[in-house]
């Protein structure tokens, strides 16, 4: 009885088919993982943008004016393209207080990917102090200061604040930028 085996041709065909199938599987895995990373990054960016814009919109609405700096003497934060210092009417049990203000700062942290909101209440105010991270995937932030007609104005006379925000989310080696813009009027101005 002759020992039956694979011919060279059969082995070559099997190896060829195995290589093709293997490559297909690896390709599916790689593209699927990449797609997953990309979608995760988009979701993360979207969630971050939604939350940050909502938070900024809320505080700008309640502000009386843009402050040049905080503290007003020997300032640590100065209003500009990347830093916004707002004056909010201080709070008491009866509501907003007359001519007493809390200061709110939105600025980049030392780590430039972190955008923070800080509240410095007046001693008479019942508003709590705050030092809160708005996002940890900041790419850029730019504030603009607008007059009644939407034209650029000095910060101290601005009645609306525009914000252009870009976040960069990276999952694995894949990342992408996503931006949003909003303009909010100071309701207490």
């Amino acid at each position, binding site marked *: 009885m002759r020992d039956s085996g694979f011919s060279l041709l059969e082995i070559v065909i099997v190896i060829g088919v195995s290589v093709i*199938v293997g490559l297909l*599987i690896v390709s599916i895995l790689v593209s699927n993982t990449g797609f997953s990373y990309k*979608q995760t990054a988009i979701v993360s960016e979207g*969630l971050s943008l*939604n939350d940050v814009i*909502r938070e900024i919109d809320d505080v700008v609405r309640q502000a009386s004016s843009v402050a040049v700096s905080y503290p007003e003497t020997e300032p640590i934060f100065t209003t500009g393209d990347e830093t916004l210092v707002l004056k909010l009417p201080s709070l008491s049990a009866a509501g907003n207080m007359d001519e007493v203000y809390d200061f709110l700062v939105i600025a980049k942290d030392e780590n430039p990917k972190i955008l923070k909101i800080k509240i410095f209440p007046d001693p008479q105010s019942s508003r709590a102090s705050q030092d809160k991270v708005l996002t940890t995937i900041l790419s850029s932030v730019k504030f603009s200061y607008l007059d*009644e007609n939407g034209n650029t104005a000095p910060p101290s006379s601005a009645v609306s604040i525009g914000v252009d925000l870009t976040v960069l989310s990276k999952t694995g080696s894949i990342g992408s930028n996503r931006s949003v813009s909003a303009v909010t009027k100071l309701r207490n101005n």
Partner: protein
Amino acid sequence: MDKNITNKESGQMLVLSIIVAALVLVNGLMILAGSQTFFQNTTYTVASAQALQLAEAGADKALASFNTAGSSYSGESETALGAGSFSVAISSEGPDTKIITATGYVPSKTNAKAKRTISIKAARGAGISFNYGVQVGEGGLKMENSSEIEGSVFSNGSISMENSTRISGDAIVAGGTAPEADQQALCSGISCTDFIFGRFPNGPIDMAQSFKSAASGYLNKVALNLKKVGSPYDLTIRIMRDDGGKPDKNQVLATGILTSDRVGSDYSLPFIEIGFGSAPSLIADTTYWIVADAYQDSSNYWMWSADLSQGYTGGVSRWSPNWQAGNPVWDDTSPPVDLDFKTYMGGVATSIIGANTALITGDARANTLQDLSIGGEAYYQLQQNIKVGGSSCGSNPECHPGSPDPAPVPMPISEANINSWKDDAENAGTYTGDMIICNAVLTSGKYVGNISSNNGCTTIIMPPVWITGNLSLSNNVTYKLDPSMGGASGVILVDGRIILSNGAKIMGSGSTGSYLMVLSLYDSRESGLSAIDVSNGGNQGILYAPLGLADIKNTNSLNELTAWKVILRNNVEVGYETGLTSVFFSSGPTGSYSVIKGTYQLR
């Protein structure tokens, strides 16, 4: 043996495929879960923004209802609007102040996916901003011998500062305005008609009148002959270039706001002046448009006095339902009319001229600066002998030659405000005869005659009070608002002169933000006599004379001073209070409700 080995290896590809499929499935599920989270978050974000807009719509409706239904409006439980609904709750804080709490729901109150609540306070009266320690009209400011202003100064006329005078803040002098109108359209007699705008949907909402200036230069202000029906929203007045016989929406040269409360319900007021943040530069014999941008409201709208005879040959009038539309439609007015207007050009040189020790600690802005020490920066066309930050100009970076003249600023209180206060006072009762008042209550009303108080008397004021004669307070007299006024402010109108001497004090109710203002309507431009005369020290208060000279002598501490012309003599000090940026004047029971600035709260 071989056969067995073959059997053990069979199915490996299937296992591998299952593992790959599982990984793909897990990744797919993670993406789906993330997408679902993102979708829910985005949906909530949109709904939350809609709920906030609905809450603000509810507050707007409440305010409008107060002004149509009066104090009988008590809120509403749920009113559907757009993508959701709103509810409004009303509470009172004093007789003239309401707290409006409005909540927006998406999609409905019973099934709210998003809910936002805001609150504001509204009160009867008029909100008025005093943005400067001293504001002066075309008469200008003269500071003598060591007088001092703690706060900034804005003057439409020149400022002169003598030895040891000091302005602790900015000093700004507007470019002078030509006294006569450069262009004007005026109706007369039977050629006068009303042109209604801002009333009907798709009808005339925005109005425009074209004109050509006689000479090139800056347009400092326009004046319009308007009246209102109800309480329309503020008008935005723009100067635009011409685009083939209609306003060019992409070429807005200047913008000014005409607040509704400056306009009366008839044409008895003079033309209402509107200034601009920065004066537009016009070229002679070129067509420009004055465009009035209104909101549509069938109950609260505007009327513009118009000339049926079309006596003005430099332009025409047109209307549009929306000047900002993609391709705005502008129609001729029918019948054709000229809308009554005046334009006033600038170009009259104004100055701040000091002496050796005259000091401005902030910025100085004027056409010409001379003999001054300036702590901030200097903006001018011409300068002579000024020191900025301790150094002469030249290469000094804090000197800004060639700066345009600041645009004039109108007085903070309009004739409409004053007339409204007079109406309220007259409606409260008329009292005839000269009076000497001591330790009494001066109730709201029209007092025909002179009123005086002296010798340490304290008088409680229930505003508005209108005195047709003179008001004289001397020897430590105190006039103060009734404590029940709370944070609201009040006014005493005086047709004649106001004379304060020896420690007369004009005070608010005692609550924060409450002030009592005495306002003289005396016209010093003809007589040369002062409308407000303050002497012999210790006097306090907010003083206002839109047509008059305020002559302040000796050592006095005033909170704010606004007049057509001001002279500060011998050691006078005016100290500005920051609360004066938002003073709310109660107008009595017949006034309309307005939002009190600074009371918007998100809850």
